């Protein structure tokens, strides 16, 4: 347990030593601030009032913003996870880890928790914007919680997928691009089913990362959605452990 903690804090410390993650903080905040401003000004515009007649501020502004936050997360997570194993392998530092009394499970979990901690910090910063609405109005607290939970779960599954891809290669850029490709396909999977049979469509849209997120954003807390994200994270963490164990053998 201790070892996992040390690997996680080391990972986090190394992330913050690189300028990349600070830039990510800044860029994400900047982009979301623009979207926040746009959505909010649209919402308060009297001319558009009839459009939003049946919806509250939480449904329009908060959900709208978090939807975009999900997409931005999809774009930036590959850059956070690409270093985890690729860089260690490229610089040879992975040999320090492999020759230390550390199991693969501890190693992967430590790295995963490190990355997750960074992403959660990012999510805290993101959530400050919708929370600032409390200064002027009332928000649907439960929907807000459900939406935040969705974002947290989404980030966790993205990180697990990124970690696994990073364990496959020794080139950070290859890891980043591949992670992005996989995340994107999982995201838009439900669109691909538009021509197939009913069952096919159902399976694809169930597998899509997007659909489950939408449910949570809408305030529909279904344990199946939560289980889906936890399962995706667990599967890719286990695959990473397998992959690293396998690497020593071949």
């Amino acid at each position: 347990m201790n070892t996992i903690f040390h690997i996680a804090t080391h990972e986090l410390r190394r992330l913050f030593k690189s300028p990349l993650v600070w830039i990510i903080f800044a860029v994400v905040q900047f982009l979301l601030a623009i979207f926040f401003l746009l959505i909010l000004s649209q919402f308060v515009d009297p001319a558009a009032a009839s459009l939003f007649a049946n919806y509250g501020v939480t449904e329009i502004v908060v959900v709208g913003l978090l939807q975009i936050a999900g997409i931005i997360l999809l774009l930036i997570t590959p850059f956070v996870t690409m270093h985890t194993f690729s860089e260690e392998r490229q610089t040879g530092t992975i040999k320090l880890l492999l020759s230390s009394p550390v199991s693969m499970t501890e190693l992967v979990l430590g790295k995963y928790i490190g990355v997750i901690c960074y992403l959660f910090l990012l999510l805290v910063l993101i959530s400050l914007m919708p929370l600032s609405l409390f200064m002027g109005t009332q928000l649907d607290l439960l929907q807000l919680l459900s939406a935040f939970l969705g974002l947290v779960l989404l980030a966790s599954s993205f990180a697990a997928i990124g970690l696994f891809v990073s364990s496959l290669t020794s080139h950070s850029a290859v890891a980043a691009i591949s992670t992005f490709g996989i995340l994107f396909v999982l995201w838009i999977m439900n669109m691909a089913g538009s021509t197939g049979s009913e069952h096919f469509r159902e399976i694809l849209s169930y597998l899509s990362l997007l659909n489950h997120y939408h449910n949570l954003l809408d305030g529909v807390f279904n344990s199946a959605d939560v289980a889906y994200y936890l399962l995706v994270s667990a599967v890719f963490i286990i695959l990473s452990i397998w992959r690293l164990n396998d690497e020593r053998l071949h």
Partner: protein
Amino acid sequence: MNKEILISVDHVSRYYGNDCAVNDISFSVHRGEVLGFLGPNGAGKSSTMQMICGVLSASTGQITVAGHDMIESPKAAKMHIGFLPERPPLYQDLTVDEYLCYAGRLRGIGKIELKEAIAYSKQRCGLTDTGKRLIKNISKGFQQRVGIAQAIIHSPAVVILDEPTSGLDPNQILEIRELISELGNDHSVILSTHILPEVQSVCDRVLIINQGKLVLDESLDNLQQDDQITPIKIAFRQPPPLDILAEIEGVMDIEQIGNHHFKIYCESEINTINRITNLAAASEWQLYEMIPEQDSLEETFIQLTRGESQPLPDEAGEGSV
């Protein structure tokens, strides 16, 4: 030799796909021993060392470290090992202290002992004043020291160093070599290198590995004793005929290796050398060079690693490696 066995490597092989990098190697390392691991590039040195450290798994065979099997209880086995790979595993953007702290934590050193362990390993590796500097800003020699410091931070029973002096300047090589000799006092050390004098200056025992096979496992003392008939390279400006030299008392064998150069194998070195110099002076052969070829290890190495695939050239083949 009846000291406790710390590492035992038992019929270990390693395949990369269909290529056999290490082929059925067995040896053991005793407590307090400094073992020199020699071999040409690509002979399987690094693979063997990485298998002992658990970085790679052996395809077949068994490795035990301090009684713990590397496959069955890797954590217990790795506690006793400090490893410096060929390229030191350093995080360039950390300071020396931060890095050693992480390395210590990975090896399970507690919070209280950690400070002491870092100070001690820094002091041993001459890093006392570099703790606050970023690793990327210190010289290559110091980076190598940091690499050694991380390998000894948890006072392991065995320290494994893979080519610790490659790429360093001669002064740094000397310093690292001194450090390794010092380590040999309280740790067992396995040292891989292709610099032969390094082995002679610091090791107790030599292993030579060629094309994945162990071809020599001998203590350095034995190796040097084996070779009591040392050849002497000798050169005259006015060389006498070969048979006159061959008749000198004490000369066992002689071969001409150039117009002016001879290689003489003699029994009791000093007496024979005296006789040759006296005779040379009396007969005006103009002796101008006389070099005893002490490098028995080098000869053994060349013989064993060139093997049948590349036979020694008949003439002037000496010292070309």
